[in-house]
């Protein structure tokens, strides 16, 4: 099993979600995070003074999948979250030892 962690632009969330559902992925967990990278932040103003906010709001998606879906999922995310501009985000792939569904106690593939 793999855990796909994707950092995406917030306004792409809806699109990514729909693309994933279309690809048969019907479970995920979202977190609001702040990202720092090559994409520059923005300037804010306060009483005539400017200050830079260099972190940007991002959404982190965590999706647990069986190994064979890896390609589908990464491709779905890449195509639906991409704008071609800096800051589109990243996808990390990590291996997961096991997963348990709390409700039933099922483990492994059944639990996803």
């Amino acid at each position, binding site marked *: 099993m793999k855990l796909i962690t994707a950092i995406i632009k917030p306004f792409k969330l809806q699109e990514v979600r729909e693309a994933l559902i279309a690809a048969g992925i019907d479970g995920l967990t979202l977190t609001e995070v702040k990202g720092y990278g090559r994409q520059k932040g923005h300037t*804010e*103003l*306060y*009483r*005539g*003074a*400017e*200050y*830079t*906010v260099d972190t940007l709001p991002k959404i982190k998606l965590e999706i647990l999948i069986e190994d064979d879906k890896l390609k589908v999922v990464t491709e779905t995310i890449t195509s639906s979250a991409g704008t071609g501009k800096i800051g589109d985000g990243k996808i990390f792939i990590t291996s997961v030892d096991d997963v348990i569904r709390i409700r039933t106690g099922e483990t492994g593939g059944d639990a996803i």
Partner: protein
Amino acid sequence: MKLLNLCLILLATVSSPAIFASEINSGDTAWILTSTALVLLMTLPGLALFYGGLVRTKNVLSVLMQCFAIACIVSVLWVLYGYSLSFYGEGNFFGNGDALFLSNVARDGLSVGYATSIPESLFVIFQMTFAIITPALVVGAFAERMKFPAMCLFSALWLTLVYIPACHMVWGGGLLTDWGVVDLAGGLVVHATCGVAALVVAMVLGPRKGFPGPSLVPHNRPMVVMGAAFLWVGWFGFNAGSAWTAGTDAGMAMLVTHISAAVGALTWMTAEWFKTGKPTVVGIATGMVAGLATITPASGTVGPQGALLIGFLAGSVCFYATQLIKGTLKIDDSLDVFPVHGVGGIMGILLLSFLGTKGILSVGSSGDFNPITQFIIQLKGVGVIVLWTVIFTWIAIKATSLITSLRVGEEDESEGLDLIEHNETGYQN
């Protein structure tokens, strides 16, 4: 003769304001009752929200608490001795003790001196709301770092050593009353004192950790706007209530107050737009407050055209003053009390000499009116109040520091005053 008597008797039962000067006028009283509510609204929730929104999340409650506690402490001190020392007796700097504990204030008593058509009880509380907001404005200077017990003690001392004498000097028959200084609703008594005190306190306390820097920004700008709105609405009571009657003076005071607020807001917004490329909502709200502070002393004497000019100067001068104090001089008058209120109030006091209507101003000054003469009187007034405020604010803050420590520790400052000083947090999920 009988007929005449009858007429007189009938007339005697008439409760009209104008007929005998020293009778309650229900319309005037209605307006001052309302104005009192409006001026309280300025501090609670107005100023509390305005300041609370400007600080960081971890300090929001501390600021609300400071405003709230000041309101309560001042109210009690005003009853005990504040009112008496401000408005009774003929001393140059302080009044006397004839109304300590409000012992002189009868249930049916009429107000003394001016404001002759309202009850004295109402005069007491209307003035109390001014005494409340002035030290509450100083909160902006020491926000996010002062300890609560020190804050309480300092505010009580400051009320006693600065506000009360300033109030007596200008409004209560003291030195500046005699000189003929004109200050309708508190350009000197309220705004110059709190502004100058803010500078002194900010310098004694030193800057917040991280000042100057990008971390010290408002946590809740809608809260700032909301607070500003209550300041605007409440200021109608502040200035138009200071006309003491519900008549043409009040109407004109309200109109010019509003105009100056609007123009101050637009001017600040525009100045900021030029300087930074964007208009901001905190900017427009701050410019509005500057416009209000500046028109305050002049709102009894200028007309609509003068108000346009005052608003314009308020918005532009106070904007640049803010840049100067924080940007250039690096003084952490945290929420910009001096550049907005101090500069605004003093500017208004001086401008009114030139923008006032002749017939009205001469009431305040002696004999026939001359703008230059009045300007010099006003300037002397500013000198006295600024000097007095510098000295006694310094005494008040130093005295406080001898009794209890002024600032929270560095780590506590990082943690935030809400948790450290009050064991509470603003928002829960």
